[in-house]
């Protein structure tokens, strides 16, 4: 049994191929990012990248967007998932389907749709749009709620949709793992209302589910290029693309930095997942 792999060389071959496919590009990128001129090594590319003020300004902007997205997602999804688990189990299949939709609707088309819908006084003056959405759209574009640059607020709200599959799956798995009904009935029989139950009983039990949702949302926002570029907003991935297009070594350095971020965030999820016994398969990303 110990040398099971040797019994069937095909299995060994596939595993070796997979390892090579995973690792060679990573090695290649790291190696390339450390090259200063062909044959010489150094941290020049990293120094150049980290020395740019635009790196830090776009980085912190994207972090801010990620923060807003996480907060709105949780505010929106926590009560919903909680309530559906407890009171409206009929709705669960519906939510399951809705939570897959953002994977299904390509981000390009979602961006086009959102632009059409919220375009403030653009060429598209097709009647109903401005009557219905005209006022709120100015308000959404202005970024007045979170004190963000114009348009960014709309992007953060759109990211809530893109993050929906992660948030929903994490919270759903988290709530399934605890005995929601017993906990809330116990709390109620001791006289607490729904809000108290949610805040003092459910939330502490969902800490790791919420954190893993937050980490996944963070990786999503820090890497999302499509919607930001179509909405003409200068986030971190946009900056990454602009620099990388001109400077090959810096592009590799940025790829390494971004990969490290992904690793840290996903390892965080993994460590948290081990404590909650949550074996969800996570798929998707900003392709």
């Amino acid at each position, binding site marked *: 049994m110990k040398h099971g792999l040797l019994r069937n060389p095909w299995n060994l071959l596939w595993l070796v191929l997979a390892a090579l496919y995973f690792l060679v590009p990573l090695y290649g990128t790291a190696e390339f990012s450390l090259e200063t001129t062909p044959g010489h090594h150094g941290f020049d590319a990293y120094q150049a990248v980290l020395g740019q003020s635009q790196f830090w300004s776009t980085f912190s902007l994207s972090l801010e967007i990620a923060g807003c997205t996480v907060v709105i997602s949780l505010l929106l999804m926590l009560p919903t998932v909680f309530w559906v688990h407890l009171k409206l189990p009929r709705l669960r299949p519906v939510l399951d389907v809705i939570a897959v939709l953002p994977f299904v609707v*390509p981000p390009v088309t979602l961006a086009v749709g959102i632009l059409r819908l919220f375009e403030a006084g653009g060429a598209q003056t097709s009647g109903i749009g401005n009557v219905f959405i005209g006022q709120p759209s100015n308000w959404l574009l202005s970024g007045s709620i979170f004190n963000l640059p114009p348009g960014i607020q709309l992007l953060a709200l759109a990211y809530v949709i893109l993050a929906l599959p992660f948030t929903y799956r994490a919270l759903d798995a988290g709530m399934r793992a605890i005995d929601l009904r017993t906990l809330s009935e116990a709390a109620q029989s001791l006289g607490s209302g729904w809000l108290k139950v949610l805040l003092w009983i459910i939330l502490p039990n969902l800490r790791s589910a919420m954190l893993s949702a937050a980490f996944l949302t963070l990786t999503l926002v820090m890497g999302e290029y499509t919607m930001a570029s179509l909405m003409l907003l200068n986030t971190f991935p946009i900056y990454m693309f602009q620099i990388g297009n001109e400077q090959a070594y810096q592009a590799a350095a940025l790829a390494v930095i971004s990969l490290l971020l992904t690793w840290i965030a996903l390892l965080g999820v993994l460590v948290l997942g081990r404590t909650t016994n949550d074996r969800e*398969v*996570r798929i998707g990303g900003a392709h």
Partner: protein
Amino acid sequence: MAQAVSQESPTAVARPLHPRAKGLARWHSVADWLPVVPFFLFFSVFLLLPTVWLVIGAFQTDSGSFTTSNVRGLFDSDILDAYKTSLEISLASALTGGIFGFFVAYAMIRGNPPRWIRPVLSTFAGVAANFAGIPLAFAFAATLGTTGVLTVFLKSHGIDLYQSGFTLYSFTGLVVVYTYFQMPLMLLIISPSIDGLRREWSEAATNLGASTSQYWRWVGLPVLWPSILGAMVLLFGSAFAAYATAYALVGSEFNLVPLLIGRNVESDFIGNPQQANALAFGMIVIIGVVMLIYTVLQRRSSRWAR
């Protein structure tokens, strides 16, 4: 109110209700729905409505009157060509990523590798499936680009990739790059189904005198194929929607549908928003068909689930 709601047990509902209690119960069932209203509102405004808007826009002229010319425009040879290339790339990368990912998953689960392999490989797959877009394109440019590390290494060992016709900035290149997230995606999606393939079945088949290929022909594949195809359908969808990776690698001039949409939205001068609507509408129709196939296959594969 809280206590009243929690008293709605099934037996209470089954009993015939006093007229006034009936009204109260109806109010409670309305109140039951209130907490989920914000979510459905948000979902409608930011996902449903934009999609509906886009579909309406696909049938409108600049000034807002009805037309089918945008959608008919999809059948121009240039645009048909973009759809064809998009579909081909998605199909090719779903097949390579799907087959590769399946064999790796099978070797990982049923090949009796050392214990540490599975968690390590699954973690790697989780990261790689999320590693996409701009940084992925950069990583491959650094590895397999004209001066990439692997290209240079192979060249010094007598294999000149770019002399022999390969280039990263092409159809083949895109398939190679997409496979980097498709293969791990397949690994993650298909693993539960391979776990569900019971050892007893293969033991029973062996005891009855079946060869390995007979086992696969009559037992293994008939059980697994809906899951395999279903997973590949998802891979197809993810490649079809991919924008950033392609944009960073081959540039916006490459004839793919998402890039074509981007070109029409981003530039104010050569852009044509009506055409972007129609193009996006076409993508939604194709993805809709893909999801329909996926649902049917899911239903078939769940027959064998425990």
